[in-house]
């Protein structure tokens, strides 16, 4: 059984959108609260890598060959690069 509290006021419900399913899994008992905590700790480290990937995506995005990122981070970098393309298109249309 999950240790995840059921209260809607719990702090975990305040996490960003990326954790939505993650916390849902916790609610459903698929992840323990300790697992949730561990993954949250990893975010700080991974965020720095993803920020770097986002920078690369804006200029010289090449997720396939980037040597410092994990496969997951390369996929995330692709997503951010695609998002950047969309945003640039939409802002260009609006201008």
């Amino acid at each position: 059984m999950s240790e995840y509290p059921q209260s809607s006021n719990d702090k975990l419900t305040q996490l960003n959108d990326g954790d939505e399913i993650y916390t849902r899994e916790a609610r459903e008992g698929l992840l323990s609260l300790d697992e949730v905590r561990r993954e949250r700790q990893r975010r700080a480290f991974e965020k720095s890598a993803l920020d770097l990937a986002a920078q690369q995506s804006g200029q010289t995005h090449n997720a396939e060959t980037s040597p410092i990122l994990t496969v997951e981070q390369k996929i995330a970098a692709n997503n951010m690069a695609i998002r950047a393309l969309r945003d640039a298109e939409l802002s260009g249309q609006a201008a």
Partner: protein
Amino acid sequence: MSNVFKKALGLITGNTGTSVGFTMPKNRPLKKLTERELIQLESEIGSKLFGEVPKGHRREFFCRDEKTWIWYEEWTDPKTNKRQNMTVRYEIQPSGILKVQEGSRYSYIEGAELDNLLAATTMYYEQVARGVYNRDPKTGQKLA
């Protein structure tokens, strides 16, 4: 398209047919497009990354947002003659790529499936950059 990509994408889908490139229609209207419409254009490319869509099938593959990929497949069951569909959602999470599929237990993908998803998303990025946004995927600069 490199043979490595062809092979990787074939492993994702089980489709060993020839993948096809995507060329944006030259008569794309010069009108403002919504984000949804841009995603639809991207999905036209995404659906072809895995080779020709079989007759009677409908396929969508697209990047929904910074954290989500959607693979939707629709077809007619030859035995029942009823339309069937399948949606797979790949969620980018701090702990990995979560595969969410109706009727299946959520699981983090790994190994060849993870590598193949990277290959698919990289090809998607490169092809939509050129085909939809007319930009160089390496530099992000507008193509002439």
